[in-house]
């Protein structure tokens, strides 16, 4: 599994990176802004994008909109990192088929459970697609 972690807070990126690499054995790429996230998503193949909602230049909601409107990326699993509780933002993200949420501060066990669930779902889908 290969994950993109995008958050403008370096501490959050560091923590999520350690968590994903150590506890799940995934590989990761990181960036601090939505513009860089779209560049990386266009250049490499990722299984999951873990995105902060509020970032400079291009926010997480705009990144999700771009992902869902891209033929190559539209089915990508997306997990939002958030301390955001604004109802309009949450409604928009649900409409955009966000896979899950991690509320800041990211709890290690909860985060692992959520990401493992995505990994299991992707593992179950992958053999079916090969048939």
């Amino acid at each position, binding site marked *: 599994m290969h994950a993109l972690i995008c958050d*403008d*807070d*370096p*501490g*959050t990126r*560091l*923590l999520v990176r*350690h*968590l994903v690499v*150590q*506890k799940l054995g995934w590989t990761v790429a990181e960036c601090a802004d939505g513009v860089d996230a779209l560049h990386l998503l266009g250049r490499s193949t990722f299984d999951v994008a873990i995105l*902060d909602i*509020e970032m*400079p230049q291009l926010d997480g909601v705009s990144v999700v909109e771009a992902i869902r409107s891209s033929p190559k990326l539209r089915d990508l699993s997306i997990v939002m990192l958030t*301390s*955001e509780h604004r109802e309009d933002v949450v409604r928009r993200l649900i409409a955009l088929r966000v896979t899950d949420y991690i509320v*800041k*501060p*990211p*709890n*290690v066990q909860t985060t692992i459970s959520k990401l493992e669930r995505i990994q299991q779902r992707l593992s179950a889908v992958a053999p079916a697609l090969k048939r």
Partner: protein
Amino acid sequence: MIDVVIPPAYLDQSVLADIRGLNTPDEDVLGEVISLYVDDVPKQLSALAAAIGAGQTEVVRQIAHRLKGSSLGVGASRMASLCSAIECAAHDHAIDHAAVHAEGLAAEFVVTSRALEQEKRAS
């Protein structure tokens, strides 16, 4: 100078324990996260003061929101509450209220950074 010991309960110990659980014999993850936070906050506080001075409420809200997230990430709940108050004040264009809370935030950081340095030494 008197070396004041900040009580552990000043920070959310459940958050710190969670991060400490990621420490390995080779890597002090909690220490790294704390260092990033303690280095970053003064820059954010300066940017916040400048934005308040310029009356840029949206920039104030964005900085406060980011600081809230990073403060929650190191168990600095008091910092996060003040950031939340600044965020609300900026959202309501109440720049004077934001300024008052920002002064409180700067003072709070003095104590919080000491408490975090204690945790770093203990990790």
